[in-house]
């Protein structure tokens, strides 16, 4: 079953066409990489899928349900998680507090005004477990804004995962990372998304070819090609537009 599907998706910003008849299919459980040159519309596609924008035309389906007009918070509640290209965490809160917010949402605790948060031991336990799994337990009480870049990006990715979503959308998770940080991040992503569906926007081709089951190439707002990594590697159009003749 396609866990995520877009049908005839168009989007423009005051007349500037950014997405053009995008028909994306994501199979349940697969890891799909979305690649393409800068300005191809990858982040815009993410934004229309995750509810930040409502597409000017077309539809988006999640688990068979029409979510075209849904808002981000509604999608988070039915199993979609998203990380951002620009780190979007609570900079002044600690790593622990950051994850805890996600844990609260996951447990549906949205209007609890009658208990002290710090006294809720099950929440604390769950949060600490997650911190351990993402190797941030050592930085538990450090404000997110003071974490090293790599750790901060890891926190960012974890915020997308901590609500335990079925579909995870990662927007350039390794952006700005060093070689080593990238390795750690890739390992983290692989480990934490076992059995889940992942759509990942990436520019780092090594990351793409090591994670992705399938690749979709976006170019000037349109899907140029889609297929297995091997197919995409050999695809002449893709090479001309994006990959060049470098051997991957």
């Amino acid at each position, binding site marked *: 079953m396609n866990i995520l599907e877009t049908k005839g998706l168009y989007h423009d910003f005051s007349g500037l066409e950014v997405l053009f008849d995008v028909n994306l299919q994501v199979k349940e459980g697969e890891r799909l990489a979305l690649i393409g040159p800068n300005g191809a519309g990858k982040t815009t596609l993410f934004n229309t899928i995750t509810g930040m924008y409502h597409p000017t035309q077309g539809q988006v389906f999640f688990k068979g349900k029409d979510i075209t007009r849904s808002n981000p*918070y509604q999608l988070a509640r039915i199993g979609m998680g998203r990380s951002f290209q620009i780190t979007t965490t*609570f900079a002044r809160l600690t790593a622990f507090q950051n994850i805890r917010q996600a844990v609260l*949402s996951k447990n549906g605790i*949205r209007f*609890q005004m009658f208990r*002290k948060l710090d006294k*809720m031991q099950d929440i604390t336990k769950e949060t600490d477990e997650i911190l351990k799994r993402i190797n941030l337990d050592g930085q538990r009480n450090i404000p997110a804004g003071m974490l090293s870049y790599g750790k901060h990006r890891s926190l960012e990715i974890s915020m997308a995962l901590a609500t335990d979503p079925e579909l995870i959308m990662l927007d350039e998770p390794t952006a700005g990372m060093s070689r080593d940080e990238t390795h750690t991040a890739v390992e983290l992503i692989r480990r934490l998304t076992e059995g889940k569906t992942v759509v990942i926007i990436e520019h780092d081709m090594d990351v793409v070819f090591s994670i992705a089951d399938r690749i979709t190439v976006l170019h000037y707002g349109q899907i140029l090609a889609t297929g297995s990594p091997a197919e995409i590697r050999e695809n002449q159009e893709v090479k001309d537009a994006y990959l060049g003749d470098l051997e991957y």
Partner: protein
Amino acid sequence: MSTKLSNWILWGVVIILLAVFPYLVSFYYLNMFIAFAIFSLYAVTLNILLGYMGVLSFGHAMFFGTGAYAVALVLRHIEGFPLLPTILVGGLAGGLLALVLCPLLVRVSGTAFAMLTLAFSMLIFVAALKFREITGGEDGIGITSIPPLNIPGLVSIDMTDKINFYYFAIIVVAICLYLLWFYTKTPFGSLIVGIRDNALRMDYLGFNLPQTKAINLVVSGTFAGIAGAVHGLLMKLVSTVGVLDIGTSFKPLMMAYIGGVGSFFGPIIGSAILHILEDVVIRFTDRIGLVNGTIFILVVLFAPQGLIGLFNTAKAKWFQKETAS
């Protein structure tokens, strides 16, 4: 000594001091203390929006004033309206006003929010001035006597006695402050701070922002209304200048800022400082506005984190020295 024990002792001392206070000072200072308490609560409600949710309410007097007017009107028009429901009416009025404004206020933040609240509070101020038949215009509405505190079947406490009223006012304010403090410690309280720090992330984590903001606004408005209600009872007169004017909107802002918007107690400290200052300065000059304004500018220039911020910086420096040596 454990922190918990020292906390209990601290609060015990505070309670004892508060209890004996009326027997130590004149009525003038008693009333001043009540005013300090009222404005502490009022300033805290502003900080629930500013420090905690990250939005500046530039017209907070509208909630305070609406609470005050509600009380004055209820006591004027309904014979024998009891005391506790009167206070609750004040809170209800403030909360209702916030609720009514929510659809607009939850959709904006930053400067737009500040300007909208300013606009609405000016609107209400002018309306209160113009519709004299209801509000008494500039002259306002007088409260002839504060109803007694009736606990059915038990006791009826006369509130015209200043000391009784002091206990009543302090207890009301203390309860409200405790409730608000507890509120900030709950999971919902952390959502509010989340909105301040990164509303986008809150949205993507699955939180309904407009709803959450609305609840916080109503909480702020309700308790500001209660503060206004007690203020009305203290002053025995509710008129536009003093509860609805822009000065009344700026006071809690200055208090919160001077004390420090980053902490729950900051506004309380700010309220204490401004009230003490006013009392001290008045002996030397009646140019209290000049002194207030200058001090405020100095605080903004040199201590933007407020007094609590200064305290925290000093503490950090002291600990640094400790570990260094």
